[in-house]
């Protein structure tokens, strides 16, 4: 049976259908989960997709963090379940404290919407497992608050433990240390600003997101088999 992936939808989320399609494309059974659901039984992995959860009011992710589903997401993550936050989903995960640091307004207050070259810098996560470090991928970014910041100690921890999983080849937003994506100490919670679901077919410019999505599905399948 296919790995089952829950795609969490907040009011204002807008990338959920692309995300479902992209995961189906790599063999998963993906379905939507509304943000008031508090039970996530039966899912092998969770994805918080891009958009503007709760209108991005206050700060991106600040209100979404208090949505009823987030308690269940935190328990799923604490149990080792694979959790992926894409763009706004990454912002939600940092606000919820499931990943360290924060995402602030881009350098120069510039909204960026463009293909970005990113490099896989660590394979110690559910998103990058078995992808050779150094591999470059072209994946679109589309954000206003994507500049990653954290204190010096957190940055040292992330670097030393191989928890910076993706870096920009050319930094589009002022992120510290060119960080595009990070993971939790156990590697099961990952957040990234680029949109791998928008790079799932050469017809739309790049299929470079597929290896990342496949790694996530493999991690979910491992949960299912366990």
């Amino acid at each position, binding site marked *: 049976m296919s790995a089952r992936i829950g795609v969490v939808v907040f009011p204002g989320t807008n990338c959920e259908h692309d995300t479902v399609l992209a995961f189906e494309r790599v063999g998963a059974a993906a379905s939507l989960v509304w943000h008031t659901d508090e039970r996530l039984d039966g899912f092998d992995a969770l994805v918080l997709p891009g958009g503007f959860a709760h209108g991005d009011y*206050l*700060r991106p992710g*600040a209100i979404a963090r*208090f949505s009823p589903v987030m308690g269940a997401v935190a328990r799923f993550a604490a149990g080792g379940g694979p959790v992926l936050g894409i763009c706004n989903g990454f912002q939600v995960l*940092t*606000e919820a404290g499931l990943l*360290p*640091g*924060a995402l*602030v*307004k*881009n*350098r*120069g*207050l510039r909204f960026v919407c463009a293909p970005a070259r990113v490099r896989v810098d660590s394979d110690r996560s559910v998103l990058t497992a078995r992808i050779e470090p150094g591999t470059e991928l072209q994946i679109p970014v589309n954000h206003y608050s994507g*500049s990653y*910041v*954290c*204190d010096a100690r957190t940055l040292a921890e992330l670097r030393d433990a191989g928890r910076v999983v993706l870096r920009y080849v050319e930094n589009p937003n*002022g992120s510290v240390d060119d960080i595009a994506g990070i993971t939790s100490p156990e590697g099961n919670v990952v957040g990234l600003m680029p949109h791998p679901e928008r790079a799932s077919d050469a017809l739309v410019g790049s299929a470079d997101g597929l290896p990342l999505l496949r790694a996530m599905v493999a991690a979910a399948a491992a949960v299912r088999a366990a």
Partner: protein
Amino acid sequence: MRYAARVEVRLRPGIADPEGATIERALPALGFDDVREVRAGRSFRFEVDAEDEDGARRRAEELAHRLLANPVIEDSDVEVREAAPAGGSR
């Protein structure tokens, strides 16, 4: 008792503040070339029901720390005073 609270949230020192920097760059053109160190932030006002001013301040600070500010990147200041009586002007 009802208390009026004001919470000011701004980026912590060391966190880039592109909004403040952009405002500062625009100032000389308006003749404000004597203004420095502009930091942008935001302010929230709300009312709290509490036994006394200290209780109201504690609740306002809790709200500031849990929601209004992200302590990873932002500092907050809280001011509390007795609210004007109901129906009074604010």
